[in-house]
């Protein structure tokens, strides 16, 4: 499956899961900020991706949980530490962590969750 084909299917998945218009689902769109996804929507998206692509996505693989909580020393004063950035890279190889690292505020973590991130995840998963 080509990247464009994956994108089209992801686009349709997000239209169904979030009730948005297809032209809103651009590669750069963030799931929470731009498309209005709430916590339960992430589970809905996983269910739909599994169905639409015929794959299994283990818990936390696409959307890692507890990224900014816990006391792993990953967050200090509202900023993700270099150790935390390294952990993000490890857990989210499909996300653009390098751009995030330029301004690693905790509230910017959600900007890692883009349409493109899902496409990249699936590209790897399907290959």
């Amino acid at each position: 499956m080509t990247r464009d084909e994956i994108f089209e299917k992801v686009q349709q998945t997000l239209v169904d899961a979030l009730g948005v218009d297809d032209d809103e689902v651009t590669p750069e769109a963030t799931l929470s900020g731009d498309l209005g996804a709430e916590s339960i929507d992430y589970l809905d998206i996983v269910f739909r991706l599994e169905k639409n692509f015929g794959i299994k996505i283990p818990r936390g693989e696409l959307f890692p949980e507890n990224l900014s909580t816990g006391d792993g020393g990953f967050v200090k004063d509202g900023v993700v530490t270099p150790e935390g950035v390294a952990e993000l890279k490890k857990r989210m190889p499909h996300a653009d962590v390098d751009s995030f690292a330029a301004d690693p505020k905790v509230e910017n973590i959600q900007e890692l969750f883009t349409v493109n991130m899902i496409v990249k995840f699936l590209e790897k998963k399907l290959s």
Partner: protein
Amino acid sequence: MRWIWIDRFLEFESGKRAVAVKNVTLAEEHLHDHIPGFAVMPGSLMIEGMAQTGGILLGEKNAFRHIVILAKVPKMTFHGYVVPGDSIHYAATLTDERPEGGSVEVRATVGETLVAEGEIMFAHIAQNDPQFGNINQKNFVFNSGLMGVFEVGKA
């Protein structure tokens, strides 16, 4: 009044499918307000009935170890309305199930007529969840308390 929007299970195939019946009667207060002079079963309460049918289906699969809550109605289409005297059959099919939650496809029919169809998603909440764990479970719909309805179905 009790927050129970199904009367009895007609079919229950553990982990797969359940069908419950809801008999609509003018004894229900809300029908006199919805709508005055033209009693119709509110769509929201039909969604609740479908969610109870599907929620018990999901909860029972895991022996009610999780608190199951209605999390999202991704899709629901109403094709007609339901009036007093009608018996609605709510059929729920479990389509997804995993530790975080599950989802069902639902259909509501009166006789041969399809009145509503859609999807409902549930989230699992742990008994020890700091946010929800101490909530009185009587306030939650899809727990074993509702199995009373199930027992009626067995009788």
